[in-house]
């Protein structure tokens, strides 16, 4: 069930921001941490990724979802707004189009967006939950993705059933494995195919992700040995303390400790490389944001121009100041994550094991 469907207070972005801003263990403002590492104010460094969130509709209701997506959500991008995205892309040379949701493939304009982006010569990424590939209505989806050389970025929080199902719902692991086999059979993740299949790990609980290289080796070994599955890379992403994960943290009494962990693990190198600096994020209704997390917190871009795709102004956006808040500690902790996986080598603490608490 989405937070919205049960009328939970945390369905409101304003309430989420209130909780985050009043966190006792994250009293230090994110901008103060940036200033100490010479990064304040955090600025964009151009746009390399045009991220489109086509809506909150999803066939799953994952317990950590920062979008509060689910089958009950009806906010999806119209063809008109999708058209504005393509018009904006056409006026730039942004190399990568990153399509996300919800389950982006369930938007009726998803395939049109892919076709148009590819026709413009752009690299396209589909952030897939995998199980969508098995829906009867999407029987030809995997073939469509392969035909258009779309990079698949697939969520799989762990290589075991128990952990995956605990986060993403009963039966999701088995379906995910079936979907991965389907993608592998089309050439995805296979050496020399040019069809990229990347997996995304995120922690199944109130802790930070491991080093990407270490857990990637485990995934490669275990998925290969147990299921014969191959993939290109594994991205590790920390759970952002917003929306459903924030609700999980508060309900379990882990909120303050998790935030303290994030603040203590602030890594300047990770902050310097966060994805928002080279991304523009478009919401389902066309509003522009620095990242998908700011999007869910209703924090639009601040670039002295209307924050809507119809008014897309790459010259101003290229050098905009990034809108920040305490939630940003989620992308700068340890090795860092953003939407693209680990950013830098892990930060060091004097007594790392004990400082994790």
């Amino acid at each position, binding site marked *: 069930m989405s937070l919205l469907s049960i009328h939970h207070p945390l369905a409101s972005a304003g309430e989420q921001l209130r909780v985050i801003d009043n966190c006792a263990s994250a009293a230090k403002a994110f901008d103060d941490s940036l200033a100490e590492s010479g990064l304040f104010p955090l600025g964009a460094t151009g746009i390399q990724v045009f991220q489109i969130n086509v809506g909150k509709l999803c066939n799953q209701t994952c317990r950590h979802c920062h979008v509060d997506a689910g089958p009950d959500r009806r906010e999806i991008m119209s063809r008109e707004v999708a058209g504005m995205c393509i018009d904006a892309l056409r006026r730039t040379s942004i190399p990568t189009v990153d399509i996300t949701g919800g389950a982006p493939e369930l938007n009726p304009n998803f395939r049109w967006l892919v076709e148009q982006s590819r026709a413009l010569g752009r690299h396209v990424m589909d952030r897939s939950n995998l199980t969508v590939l098995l829906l009867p209505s999407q029987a030809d989806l995997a073939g469509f993705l392969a035909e258009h050389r779309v990079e698949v970025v697939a969520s799989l929080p*762990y290589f*075991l059933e*128990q*952990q995956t199902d605990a986060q993403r719902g009963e039966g999701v692991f088995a379906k995910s494995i079936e979907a991965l086999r389907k993608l592998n059979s089309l050439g995805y993740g296979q050496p020399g195919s040019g069809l990229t299949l990347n997996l995304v*790990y995120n*922690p199944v*609980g109130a*802790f*930070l*992700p*491991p*080093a990407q290289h*270490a*857990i990637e080796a*485990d995934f490669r070994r275990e998925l290969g040995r147990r299921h014969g599955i191959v993939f290109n890379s594994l991205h590790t992403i920390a759970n952002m303390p917003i929306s459903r994960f924030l609700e999980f943290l508060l309900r379990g009494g882990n909120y303050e400790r998790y935030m*303290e962990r994030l603040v203590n693990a602030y890594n300047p190198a990770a902050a310097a490389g966060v994805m928002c600096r080279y991304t523009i994020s478009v919401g389902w209704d066309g509003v522009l944001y620095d990242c998908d997390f700011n999007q869910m917190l209703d924090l639009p871009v601040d670039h002295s121009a209307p924050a809507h795709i119809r008014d897309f102004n790459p010259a101003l956006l290229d050098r905009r100041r990034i809108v920040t808040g305490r939630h940003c500690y989620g992308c700068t902790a340890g090795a860092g994550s953003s939407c693209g996986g680990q950013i830098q080598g892990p930060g*060091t*603490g*004097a*007594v*790392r*094991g*004990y*400082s*994790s*608490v």
Partner: protein
Amino acid sequence: MAGYYHAEDLPHFPDIGKHAPELWQKFSEWYGAVFAEGALSEREKCLIALAVAHAVQCPYCIDAYTQACLEKGSNLEQMTEAVHVASAIRGGASLVHGLQMRNAAEKLSM
């Protein structure tokens, strides 16, 4: 004092260094080096630490290294096996002293 072993005390572990800063500095550097990736991975070292934490029955260490193991990508099956290793050695260490008992008894007996 209301009691022992308060979870909220753990973040104050560095306070130990307040009256012996040089010793704390040495400990911190050595500790950091011990847990750095080497011939053993950081994940393996955390599992060893978790097992030892159970052997020495330190609730602070169990708390810290449960989280650290999860953050290194270990799962509950692996962590439970690590605890069993510690328990088996603890139990075995008791049992193997039975040889001392047997030797002593043999010496004393007719």
